[in-house]
């Protein structure tokens, strides 16, 4: 009985699908294979979280859109499935469909891009947050890297200058090497201002469990704990979970620091009052610059483009004006980093 049921189930689905096959041929418009002249066909493969994360996926989209505005062309965006097991398919299908350049967002593409890129030598790839300085991923892959620790250092400086309780917090999304860079920079910055400052550190999920980037409840809980333990400023590098950190800050009447994009601009009014600044990671600029370089034929491949303080790839936002009074001191530290007087650690 069960067998028959399963057969019928599969069969009827296939039938239904076939029945509609003929009628709908006119309905599928979209992107034809033949490239329209010199127009750019940009492929964009997101990391888990996908479009609408108010974080770096969206930032990458902004970069692509800015590039298209400037250079013309079109973009095909692809999000992975929930468990991101089809990352490889995203890249291959973009490359197969003739998209060039293909941009992968996130360090999770590390292994996949190394597999796919060599199969499509004529396609130019870029990976946000992934290094290819040694060319191990293929000659046609460019890594778009960020000196998160430098921007986080300045966030730490701002927090240490502004704290009244001499106690600040860091909420990391997932305990991974990338987020540890934020933590290391933040702690170093805070201690550079005041060696006695207490930095509370907590991660929302362990390595391998990416739920920490999309769990506002947990973010709120952890931030609440930090505020109760005496922190008055909490910096988050936790993607979508940061929402909860801001909520906790509003309820506690304390302050928070945003990450990646200028989160003051997208926050509701009550949260704008507590978002002191945001550590900017200008994925949009990096992506836009890469596409521009590609259009001008200047992409070498097998290299990294590092976006740090000197290129404006990382920094602090000033929306809201909460850190205007300490702008001079922040600039001083920034200059010291630029001059090489301060080397910011990348591991805690």
């Amino acid at each position: 009985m069960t067998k028959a049921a399963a057969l019928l189930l599969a069969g009827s689905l296939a039938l239904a699908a076939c029945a509609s096959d003929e009628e709908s041929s006119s309905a599928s418009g979209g992107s034809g294979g033949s490239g329209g002249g010199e127009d750019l066909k940009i492929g964009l493969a997101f990391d888990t979280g996908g479009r609408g994360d108010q974080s770096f996926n969206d930032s990458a989209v902004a970069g692509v859109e800015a590039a298209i505005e400037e250079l013309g062309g079109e973009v095909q965006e692809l999000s992975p499935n929930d468990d991101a097991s089809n990352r490889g398919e995203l890249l291959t299908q973009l490359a197969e469909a003739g998209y060039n350049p293909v941009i992968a967002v996130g360090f999770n593409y590390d292994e996949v891009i190394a597999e796919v890129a060599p199969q499509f030598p004529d396609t130019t790839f870029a990976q946000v947050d992934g290094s290819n300085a040694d060319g191990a991923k293929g000659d046609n892959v460019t890594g778009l890297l960020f000196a998160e620790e430098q921007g986080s250092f300045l966030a730490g400086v701002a927090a240490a200058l502004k704290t009244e309780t001499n106690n600040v917090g860091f909420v990391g999304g997932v305990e991974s090497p990338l987020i540890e860079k934020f933590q290391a920079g933040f702690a170093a910055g805070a201690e550079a201002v005041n060696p006695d400052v207490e930095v509370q550190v907590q991660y929302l999920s362990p390595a391998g469990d990416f739920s920490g980037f999309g769990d506002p409840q947990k973010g709120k809980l952890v931030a609440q704990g930090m505020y109760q333990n005496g922190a008055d400023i909490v910096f988050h590098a936790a993607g979508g979970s940061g929402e909860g950190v801001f909520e906790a800050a509003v309820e506690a009447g304390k302050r928070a620091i945003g990450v990646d994009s200028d989160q003051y601009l997208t926050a509701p009014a009550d949260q704008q009052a507590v978002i002191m600044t945001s550590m900017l990671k200008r994925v949009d600029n990096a992506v836009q610059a890469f596409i521009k370089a590609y259009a001008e034929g200047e992409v070498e491949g097998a290299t990294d483009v590092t976006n740090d303080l000197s290129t404006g790839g990382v920094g602090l936002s000033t929306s809201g004006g909460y850190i205007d009074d300490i702008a001079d001191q922040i600039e001083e530290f920034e200059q010291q980093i630029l001059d090489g007087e301060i080397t910011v650690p990348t591991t805690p």
Partner: protein
Amino acid sequence: MTALRRLGTSLAAPALAVVVALVITTLVIVLIGQNPLTALQVLVDFGDTPAQQTQAIVVILNRAVPLFLAGLAVSVAFRMGLFNIGVEGQYRMATVVAAGVGAAVVLPGPLHVLLIMVVAMAVGALWAGIVAVLKVTRGVSEVISSIMLNFIALGTASFLLTGPLRGSPEGASIITTERLPASAQFPALNGLFGALGLAQPRGQLFGFLLVAVVVGIVVSVLLKRTRFGFDLRATGLSPSAATASGIDARRMVVKTMLISGAIAGLIGLPDLLGRTYSFGTEFTAGLGFLGIAVALLGRNSPLGIAFAALLFAFLDRAAVPLQFADIPASVVTIIQGTIVLSVVIANEVSRQVTKRRAGRQSGQATPPAADATGPAGTRIDARQEAGA
């Protein structure tokens, strides 16, 4: 006459479920302003060139193998009335340990693969065994303990990965275990395409497909043709009746969970032995939970689960092409969700219908046989007695 009728109701249920799922999905696609026919066309369009078409088949099969194993692991426990939600944790623990052991030893080819499989099954069984022991000795509901153990497994796997089993260099953004040597890599089945005269796909077809088939057959035989399988199903149907007829319910709980966990231990291996060759932070997670849906859809029979896994994989494949057609990939998740929900509801409805009919026909005679394949979820109250 009655047999024919019974067949009718059992077929009507899944057919109804599919119709309902299609209607709901169509409505959703229309609501978001897209053409549902385009979506259906994308679902069945495997590509233009022969290589693309075989590649689509590879993608579907490669996805179906772990889903099938996950569904099988869940279903074995289901059949006995145990709700093993811990498959997720069991396969994560099993995969990370198996990856570590596999990278640490040197053995000739087949033995190496075999060792990794044995280790994975042993770890999965052990992890599930904790749930069983808690249940039979302390009466802890396996639902609660297996969920809790999932969190512990995640944390422990993460500790093992970042600590003792770490193989990736310091500073690498993805942390992985040491890469498995060539002798531990399961050969791909791509020769099959050549033998069948089909175009070579670009990807590799998991050789682990064969193992999955064997495991499916073994479980099928075990459940249907052995004393143990009879005891298991009997306990699942009526714990009190089974106990009365001399089946040791406690021992059955332990054995069943061990088997369920051992199968769960295999879930990560297709990927580990056929593609990634190491366990890392970005290793596919969530298969254990998908397995519950697959088992429900497959009505707990190995063949049904195979179809369910293939159906899920078939739908999953469309996630990428759908986006090329400007339809969000979440449509796939919606279809899968509605199908499972509809199947569960339809099963329950058909069960009620059969029950009522049987009651009407023969007064208080034998209970309806349709119960044997009823959804496990409907017996949650009955199995509470099993462990008590």
